[in-house]
Structure formats: structure tokens, C-alpha cells
């Protein structure tokens, strides 16, 4: 009988990739968004296998939970009459191929160069404290800058949506 965690990994990986494929290939944009939930949950499952429960919970709360908002925007912003043909292919195959290939190469190189640490034995029982130390200690400034960046993005989005010069 094979190792259960290996089996679980392959099942989760297959589910994640199949769901990610469905996100791209399905023609109904709401179905695509729902498969995105499945993709994120699959990734969260892989985090659980790596004993990073906190990260898995963040993945579910932040990414999978936010898909609800994504769907609302998809419904509100889709101008097509027929929702069944709201996520179609277009004809820019060449540009898409170039961009995807470049992205794929960057990711492959990045993962290839990474020196993977194989931790001996068990991971620590609780990694919440370590994550907090990293966020609020060593990486406090990048963390805060990212927060300000997000705030700017939100304010900008609201301004764009409301229209800057609209008279009250």
C-alpha cells in the first residue's frame, strides 16, 4: 500500500490542475469562477499536507472566500446578453502563446534555481508565531508597504468606479 500522504498529494494535484484547466476552458464565466474555488481549495489541501495549516486557512479565507466577490463583479460587469458565452476564446493565439511561454520559463527557472530545504523530521507544531515574527519583525517594512499599495489600489478602484468629476 502506497504512502497515504503521497497518494493524497497526487489526488489533490490532479484535482487542482483539472479545476484550473476548467477555469480557462469553460465558456460560462460564473462556472469558471466556481472552478477557481476548487483550485484554491486544492492548493489549501496541499498546504495542509505540508503541515502549514495556517497558510491553508489563509488560502481558503482570502482566496477561495474572495471568489464570491469576484463572481458578483463578473455578473455585474459582463455586458453580454448570454451568460453561457461570456468567457470566450479570442484570436490572439500568437501573443497568448508568447506570453504564456515566457511566464512558464520564468517560473521554471525560479523553481529550478531555488535551493529546496528538506527539513529533517517533523515540522514545528505551531507556525503561527513564526509567521507573525516574520511579518511584524524582520519584514515589517515590506509588509506595511504592501498594505499601503493595496490601500492605494482600493481607493483608485473606488474613484474609477464612481467617476472622478461626478457632481453630487
Amino acid at each position, binding site marked *: 500500500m502506497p504512502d497515504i500522504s503521497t497518494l493524497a498529494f497526487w489526488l489533490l494535484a490532479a484535482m487542482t490542475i483539472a479545476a484550473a484547466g476548467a477555469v480557462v476552458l469553460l465558456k460560462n464565466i460564473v462556472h469558471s469562477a466556481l472552478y477557481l474555488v476548487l483550485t484554491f481549495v486544492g492548493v489549501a489541501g496541499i498546504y495542509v499536507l505540508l503541515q502549514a495549516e495556517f497558510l491553508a486557512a489563509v488560502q481558503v*479565507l482570502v482566496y477561495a472566500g474572495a471568489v464570491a466577490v469576484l463572481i458578483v463583479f463578473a*455578473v455585474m460587469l459582463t455586458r453580454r446578453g448570454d451568460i453561457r458565452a461570456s468567457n470566450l476564446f479570442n484570436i490572439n493565439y500568437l501573443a497568448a502563446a508568447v506570453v504564456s511561454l515566457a511566464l512558464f520559463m520564468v517560473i521554471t527557472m525560479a523553481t529550478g534555481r531555488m535551493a529546496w530545504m528538506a527539513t529533517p523530521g517533523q515540522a514545528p507544531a505551531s507556525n503561527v508565531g513564526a509567521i507573525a515574527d516574520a511579518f511584524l519583525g524582520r519584514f515589517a517594512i515590506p509588509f506595511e508597504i504592501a498594505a499601503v499599495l493595496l490601500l492605494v489600489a482600493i481607493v483608485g478602484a473606488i474613484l474609477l468606479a464612481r467617476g472622478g468629476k461626478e457632481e453630487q
Partner: protein
Amino acid sequence: MENIFTDLAALINGFLAGAPPWLQTLAMGIVYLVGVLAFIFLNAIYLIYLERKISAYMQQRIGPNRLGPHGLLQSVADAVKLLGKEDIIPRGADKWVFIIASVIIFIPAVMVYAIIPFGKGMIPVDLNIGVFYFLAVASMTTIAILMGGWGANNKYALLGSMRAVAQMVSYEIPLTFSLLGVIMLAGSLQTSQIVAAQSNVWYILLQPLAFLIYFIAATAEVNRAPFDLVEGEQELIAGPYIEYTGMRYALFYLSEYANLVSVSALAVTLFLGGWQGPWLPSWLWFLIKVYIMIFIFMWLRWTFPRIRIDHLLSFNWKVLLPLSLANILVTGVGIKIYQLLTLGRW
């Protein structure tokens, strides 16, 4: 009496003594799941009865009183009736989304019970990120409601689910922030440790504001009046649930009451000392406290009229959110001052 449930679990575990470890883990997991499901079903059935009785008393009516003594069997009869109803799927519906939504709504409702300490040593899974797990899993409810509302292909259902997203995503934030005060005091996300930390003083005394914010936000999260805009019988005729019939409708109803019990149980765990109490068995204390919380939720529901959607959202962003942030700040400063006074250092 105290150990009745832990003894039962130990007994079942004893049967499996010779089995391989993975089988033991699996079997015990199923035992816990069955226990939690029984808890949810029994509670939900009698909460519906309780809600009808309480609403009746508040409106000077009698409420269900025909089936069984004092109408105690009314909910059972209703459940049987729902089981026998035809399962109707509208022709224009997004069929699979519509069907799956009624099942998915129940998954987070059950999963959150994993970290609830029902009594001394009676916690299904003692996760070290307990409270955070609860919040993460509970956030998936929004998607299920949205799926139901979208799948029905009905304008009232879609409007209701749009409201659900606006309301539940917004109120999640003060809900989470109100729990941070407790987590800072306990120094842990683990529900068993938070209960243990309250052996001297319940956190409702140290965090009254956080409790109030949690209570309001939780009412909004479980879509109960005065925050039941998602269903809004008078304007949206039950919102996302409008096209559901029979057992699918019952699943939505069931998970609504399951969520009511779980947010009450979380309030008891974090603010009311969990299962701790004198004389009576710990699980009985837990149940008594949960039912006090549920009674307050019902009291609120039958006392206040529904709030308007723009008031609902501005109340969240302009009142609850700043208050919960201030509560975190005051708690942090308070902890440091306390440490300075007692330990003589930060």
C-alpha cells in the same frame, strides 16, 4: 455523568485496538462526525420548535400545540413532510450549480464544529489554529448562498445572493477583529487553550465591547433578523432559497440553524468560559450557555425590525469596524500595562 461521552469514545476506540493506526484514525473521525451530525440534527429540529414558540410568546400567540405534548413533535412532522416533497428544478436554472449549492451549504456548517470544545476533553479536533480555522471555513458559506441564488436563475434569488455577498463579506471583518482581542489575551488560537485561560475570569468581562461587536456581526453572518436582508420575505420572498423545494430547501434551513448553533458555541467558547462551571457536568454547562446565547439571538430577532441595506453597510464600515480596531489597540496597550505592573517589564 461527567465522563459519559469521553467514556463512550474510549469504548469505541477500545474495539479498534488491534487495527492499523490509519484505520483507527479514520474510524474515530467517522465516530466524531456522526456525533456532530446527531448534535446538529437534534438541535436544528428543536430550535425550529423553540423559535416558533418564542416568537409566539413574544407576539402573544400560542404557537405549535397540536402534535405531541405542547406541539413538541411539530418539527419532526415538518421534516417528514419535507422529505416527501417533490424535488423541483426550474427549467431555466443553471442545473448543476443549483443542485450542488444545496449540498455545499451544509459542508462548512458541519466542518466548523471540528474545533468546538463541547466539554472537558470533548473536542473533535484540537487544531492549533482553531479559531482561525472556524473563520476560514465559515467564509465558504457565502459562496454556497451565491451559487444557490445564481443557479436558480430568478431575479429575486440573484438580488438576495448579491445582498448576501455584500453583507457577509463586510461583517466578516469586524467579526474577525472582535475575536482578536480574546486571542491576544489568551495568547493562542487553540480553542482548548482559550477555554483553559478563562478558568479565573470569563473574557466577556475583559472584552465586553468585543463581545457586543461579535454578537452583532454574528447575527449578520447567519442572516438573522434584524439583518435578514438576504431572505427578506416581504421584499425578496426568501431570496436565494426561493426556487428550492423539499429536501434541498430543508438543507438550507438546516445549515442556517447549524450556523446559529455554531456561532453561539464559538461565543460561549471565546467569551463565556466554554464548558467551565461548577457542580454540573461540563457538557451540560456548555449546552446551557449555548442555549442562553441562542435565546438572546431569538429575542433579538423577534424584537427588532429589519434594517435597510445602506444602513446595514454604513453601520458596518463606519461604526463596527472603527470600534473593533480601537478595541484591538486598547487591548494591546492594556496587556502591556498589565505586564508592566505585574512583571515589572514589557
